[in-house]
């Protein structure tokens, strides 16, 4: 909680999940665990990619992405691949948050560069802790750029 409140730009958490219930549960449980980050929800991979495509170039805002794998249109693996292939977005931390625990899929996600892989249903306290750490990391990473 401290990290998010004391740092000037707490990262916005982008939840990408086609299941509205899952998105609500994630948001409410993170709030219950004390996280105060702004949260936005995208219903599939395409919606998230559209959001990034429409942002003005050079806008300083930090994000943390929670990504489901099985989604219509563009799935989570493809989103992860495209984010990591984009120089401007490659550094964004991505938490894969999905029902799959298939070893090959987990390995694939880490190979593609996801920060953390968590299987649903999650232990929200530990989940919030992981987000705090990653969120702090993002803030530290982006602060010099903001202050210059």
């Amino acid at each position, binding site marked *: 909680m401290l990290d998010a409140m004391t740092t000037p730009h707490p990262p916005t958490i982008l939840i990408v999940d086609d299941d509205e219930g899952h998105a609500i*549960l994630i948001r409410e449980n993170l709030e219950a665990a004390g996280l105060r980050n702004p949260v936005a929800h995208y219903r599939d991979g395409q919606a998230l990619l559209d959001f990034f495509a429409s942002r003005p170039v050079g806008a300083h805002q930090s994000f943390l992405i929670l990504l489901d794998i099985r989604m219509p249109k563009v799935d989570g693996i493809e989103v992860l691949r495209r984010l990591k292939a984009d120089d401007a977005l490659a550094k964004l931390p991505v938490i894969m948050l999905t029902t799959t625990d298939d070893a090959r899929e987990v390995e694939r996600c880490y190979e593609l560069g996801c920060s953390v892989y968590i299987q649903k*249903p999650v232990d929200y306290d530990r989940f919030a802790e992981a987000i705090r750490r990653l969120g702090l990391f993002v803030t530290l990473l982006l602060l010099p750029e903001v202050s210059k």
Partner: protein
Amino acid sequence: MPVPENPSSTDRETLERDLHATVRELREVKAALDEHSIVAITDSSGKITYVNDKFCAISKYERAELLGQDHRIINSGHHPSSFFRDLWTTIVHGKVWHGEIKNRAKDGTYYWVDTTIFPFLNEAGKPRQFVAIRTDITQRKASEDELQRVAAELAEKNKELEAIVYTVSHDLRSPLVNVQGFGKQLSRACETIRAAAAASDGKISLEPLQKPLEVTIPQALKFINAGVNKMESLLAGLLRYSRLGRVALNLRPLNINAGIAEILAAMKFQLDEVKAEVRVDPLPACVGDSVQTSQVFSNLLDNALKYRDPARPLRIVIKGEVRDGQSIYSVADNGIGIAPEHQAKVFDIFHRLNPDLATGEGLGLTIAQRVLERQKGRIWVEGQAGVGTTFYVSLPATDTHA
């Protein structure tokens, strides 16, 4: 030059009689052979000099069309030229050739023959002529092909099924996450209401809230959670099962005694706790996947422990022998046993004979069976209710034992 001894008339009569008898016998043997087999004779260069009726019938050629030709007339093109080269090399060296040949009849249809070619040698030991005796195995070949096709199709379907099970299990977990998550939300909201009511100093009347807050909601949530947990463990089991077919096997000779010693060491605490006595005989080696085979034995020992008879101390005896190229192991216990009518069902997925006795998914034996099938092994059970259970595991024996 010595004058040949003139045979006496009785000797000549005997000789002629013998000759007649031999010729008659040969004729009968040939008739019997013609009745059963497809027969052809060629000269030393391979030109056909004789064919019987069955040869004409199956090849659909007239006898006149065949005589003077060589066997290329019925070549189907199925076999590589090296196949016939090897055949020819064998017989010109005076050896018998045996094999299966696919031929083409005059009308373009194909037939398979199980063939023996026997060279008749001259005084110099060189082939004088070749006799080919064949049996029509077209039907058997068709059955073999069909069997192979069905086996391949079955393997494909099995893979498909595993893929379906995998996908379905995942898709089913998704709504489950909601049921579980929102169940927790309800439970938390319930707490909030209870706390608010308690803190209101009687401004909120607890009376009408009491039953829902204390009984109805907690009971509903308890069953919702139990349902979720059960579903979760079933899905986890299904996922585990569906993955079995995709795990790569590392087949090598296994020392089963060492494997079982490791399992027993890991289970020592539980075994000592119930004062179990375990006897392990010297066991033959086998060929299998170390990890998966260990899992099978670990599961059997675990079952022996779970389903022991509390009325007597648990005794487990593990024995092994090699029979017909298979190493067969038995794990016998003196537990509660399985009635014969229930024995087949213990391998069914999610089937649990005594769900109240111990925890589990009803998956251990199903997985053991699947795992062994993939390693050309088998598992089966014998035993009597009230006396004990013996599980048998068979795996291919190592070469030294075969």
